[in-house]
C-alpha cells in the first residue's frame, strides 16, 4: 500500500471525529490492558522472563548472519527452500514465481504483517491469482478494501454493524433475509464461506512469529486455526518472514512464547502454536508437498549497528499499541502505513524514510507506557527522540519551530537567565490567570489551547519552590 503517513495530522483529526472508531477503540483500550495485567499477575516470573527475552533477541541480532545461515542449512536439510529477498519487490516476485510454478488460482493466507508490508495481495491480484485472507479480522478488512488498523486485531476499528454491512455486500448468494446482527452469526457465516476456500486453495501463505535456527522450523501463533488450515491443506506452503524473526533454539522460542500471548491478548497461551519443519514426509497422509520460506530484509539489515537496532527485538505483540494514549485515541489508520502505534512510530521511518513518516515519532506524549509493557523492553520513547533529532538535523522541521527550539536551547544553557525568565513567566501568568484559574487561549500556543485549557501557574516556578524547600530543610 502507498503510505499516507505524511497526512498523519489530517488522518488523526479524522480518527478523532469518527464516532464508530471512538466506540471500537474504547473497547480495545480497556480490554487488552486489563487481560494482560491479569495474566502477568498470575506469573510471578514475568519480569525476569522479559529480561531473558531481551537477552535472547540481543544475542540473536549480534550473531544474525550465523543464525540465518544455520537456519537456511536446516530448512534445506528438512526438504524446504529458502528464498532471500533484499526488498519488497524481490519478495513479491519470489512468492509469485512459486505460485506460478504450480499454476495457482486461489491462495489462502494466514495473517501476516510482513505480507502487508510488501503489499503481497495487490501483486497477486494483478497477476491473476486470488488471495483469500482467512483470519476473521483480515477477511473483514479485505472485503472492505482497507488496511489493518492493528497488528494483531486488524479489524479493531469496526463494530459489528460494519461487519454485517461488509458481509451483506460480499455474500450476495446468501438469503438477504438472514439475521447476522450478532458476533456468533457473523463468525458462523465467515466460517461457512471460508471453509470451501481452504479446501480449494492451491497455495497457502502464512507469516511466522519465530524461525528456529537450530531446526529450520517456522512457528505461527493463532487462535482461530485458520493458519493451520491455510498451511496444511494446499500442496504448497509459503512462509513469508522478515530476518529478525530468527531465534537460536527451541528453548529460546519457549521463553519468547511465554511472553508473547500474555503481552498480546492476555492469554496464557494462544489456542494454536504450530511449528512446521519442511514439507510432507514419506508416508504422511496430509500436509503440503512443498515448503518455501521467503526471507525478507526490506530495510532490517540497515538498522543493525545503528540507533534503531533494538527495534529488531520486536515480537509484534501489540502491547505498546494497546497501552498508548495516542493510538487508542486516533486508531491505526491515522499512522498511514502498515505498523501503527509506538512500534510503528519507530519502525515506519526506518522502513519508508523519516521524510515520509516524520510525523509518527512526534505523535507521542512520552508517557513511557509503551516501553514499560514491551515484553522485550524496547526503549521506544528514546528511539522516537532519535528520530526527532534526525529530523532536526536534516532540517525537516518548520523554520519557526527550528528557531523556537534554538532560542529555547540558548536560554536553557544559561541557568541564571532561564530561572529568571521562568520566574517572571510564572508570576505574570499566575497573576493574569488568577480569577479563572486557567487560560482558554495563549499567544504562541494556539495549537495547544485549541482543544484544551492551560491551567494557570500558582505564581512560583518549580525551581524556586524546590530551592526554598532545600533551604528550609537545612
Amino acid at each position, binding site marked *: 500500500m502507498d503510505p499516507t503517513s505524511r497526512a498523519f495530522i489530517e488522518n488523526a483529526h479524522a480518527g478523532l471525529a469518527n464516532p464508530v472508531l471512538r466506540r471500537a477503540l474504547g473497547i480495545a483500550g480497556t480490554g487488552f490492558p486489563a487481560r494482560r495485567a491479569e495474566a502477568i499477575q498470575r506469573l510471578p*516470573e514475568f519480569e525476569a522472563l522479559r529480561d531473558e527475552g531481551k537477552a535472547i533477541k540481543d544475542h540473536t541480532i549480534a550473531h544474525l548472519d550465523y543464525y540465518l545461515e544455520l537456519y537456511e542449512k536446516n530448512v534445506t536439510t528438512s526438504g524446504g527452500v529458502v528464498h532471500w529477498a533484499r526488498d519488497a519487490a524481490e519478495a513479491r516476485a519470489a512468492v509469485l514465481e512459486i505460485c506460478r510454478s504450480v499454476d495457482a488460482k486461489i491462495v489462502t493466507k494466514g495473517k501476516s504483517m510482513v505480507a502487508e508490508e510488501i503489499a503481497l495481495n495487490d501483486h497477486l491480484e494483478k497477476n491473476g491469482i486470488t488471495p483469500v485472507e482467512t483470519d*476473521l479480522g483480515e477477511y473483514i478488512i479485505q472485503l472492505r478494501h482497507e488496511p489493518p488498523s492493528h497488528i494483531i486485531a486488524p479489524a479493531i476499528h469496526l463494530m459489528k454493524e460494519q461487519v454485517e454491512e461488509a458481509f451483506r455486500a460480499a455474500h450476495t448468494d446468501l438469503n438477504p433475509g438472514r439475521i447476522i446482527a450478532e458476533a456468533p452469526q457473523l463468525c458462523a457465516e465467515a466460517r461457512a464461506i471460508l471453509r470451501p476456500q481452504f479446501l480449494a486453495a492451491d497455495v497457502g501463505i502464512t507469516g511466522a512469529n519465530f524461525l528456529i535456527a537450530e531446526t529450520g522450523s517456522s512457528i505461527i501463533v493463532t487462535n482461530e*486455526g485458520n493458519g*493451520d*488450515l491455510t498451511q496444511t491443506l494446499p500442496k504448497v506452503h509459503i512462509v513469508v518472514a522478515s530476518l529478525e524473526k530468527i531465534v537460536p533454539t527451541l*528453548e529460546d522460542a519457549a521463553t519468547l512464547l511465554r511472553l508473547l500471548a500474555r503481552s498480546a491478548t492476555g492469554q496464557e497461551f494462544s489456542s*494454536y*502454536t504450530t511449528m512446521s519443519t519442511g514439507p510432507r514426509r514419506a508416508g504422511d497422509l496430509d*500436509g503440503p508437498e512443498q515448503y518455501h520460506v521467503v526471507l525478507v530484509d526490506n530495510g532490517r539489515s540497515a538498522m543493525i549497528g545503528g540507533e534503531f537496532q533494538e527495534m529488531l527485538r520486536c515480537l509484534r505483540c501489540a502491547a505498546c499499541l494497546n497501552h498508548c494514549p495516542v493510538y487508542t485515541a486516533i486508531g491505526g489508520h491515522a499512522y498511514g502505513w502498515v505498523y501503527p502505534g509506538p512500534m510503528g512510530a519507530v519502525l515506519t521511518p526506518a522502513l519508508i524514510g523519516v521524510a515520509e513518516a516524520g510525523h509518527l515519532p512526534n505523535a507521542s506524549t512520552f508517557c513511557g507506557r509503551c516501553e514499560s509493557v514491551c515484553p522485550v523492553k524496547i526503549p521506544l520513547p528514546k528511539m522516537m527522540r532519535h528520530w526527532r533529532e534526525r529530523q532536526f538535523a536534516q532540517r525537516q522541521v518548520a523554520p519557526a519551530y527550528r528557531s523556537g527550539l534554538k532560542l529555547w536551547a540558548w536560554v536553557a544553557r544559561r541557568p541564571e537567565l532561564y530561572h529568571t525568565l521562568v520566574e517572571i513567566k510564572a508570576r505574570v501568568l499566575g497573576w493574569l490567570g488568577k480569577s479563572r484559574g486557567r487560560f482558554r487561549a495563549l499567544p504562541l500556543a494556539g495549537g495547544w489551547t485549541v482543544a484544551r485549557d492551560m491551567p494557570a501557574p500558582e505564581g512560583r516556578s518549580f525551581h524556586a519552590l524546590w530551592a526554598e524547600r532545600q533551604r528550609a530543610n537545612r
Partner: protein
Amino acid sequence: MSARDDILGRIRSGLGRGELAGGALAEVAARVAEHRRNLIPDRAASQDVAGRINLFIAMAEAVQTTVTWVEKDIDIPAEIARYLAAENLPAELRVAPDPSLAAIPWVERPLLNIRHGKAEPSDAVSLTPCLAAIAETGTLMLVSGEATPTTLNFLPDTHIVLLRADQVVAGYEDGWDLLRQRQGDGPQALPRVVNFITGPSRTGDIEQKIELGAHGPRRLHVILVDDGKARPRK
C-alpha cells in the same frame, strides 16, 4: 551479488565484523548444541505427577477444554459414546490410525461408526493421540506422522484427544526433550508439524468478544486415561 550474499554482507558490516570464526564461532555453535534451558516458571516445574495432572486439568478447563477421566482403555468407547450423546453429536468418529489407539475395544460399542485415516471435510468428530500435555498452560502437544495426520486436529468440528497420565509434563521444554529423544538432534528430530493446542478454536475479532469455533474445532475434549497411580482430583 546474490540477494543472500548481499544481505549477509550488510548484516556483517552493520555488526562491524566479518564472518564469525575461531573462538567466537565455537561459542555460538556450543550455545546451540547445548539446548540450555532458560528460566522455567515455578508453576508447573515444582509439581509432582498428581500436581501436574491437576494443574493441566485446571488450565485446560480455564480455556474451555473439557476433560474426563477413565481408568482403562476398555472404558474409552463408553466414554466417547456418552460424550457424543451428551453433545448431541452423531455416533461417528474419524480415528487416527495410530498403534497407541489400536487396543481400544470398539466392539464394546457396535453403534459407534469408526473410520480410520486423515480427516475428510465431512467428518464431524476426530479422535487422536498426543505426544504430551503441558501442565503449565493446559496445552496438548501433538505431532504429525504416518499415523497422525494433522487434518484430524483442525477440520472436524469436535476434536477428542486421548491423553495418558504419564504423558503430562511440566513445561514446553519437556516437550522438546521428548521430540529429541524420539529422533535425535537437528531438523531430523522433528516431525513435519508440532501442534500445541490450548483450548478450542476462537476469535475476538468482532468487538473483542470471544467466539469459539472460528475455523478449527468448536469443541476440544480430553479423555485422560489413568489407572489410578496418579489419580486426578475428580
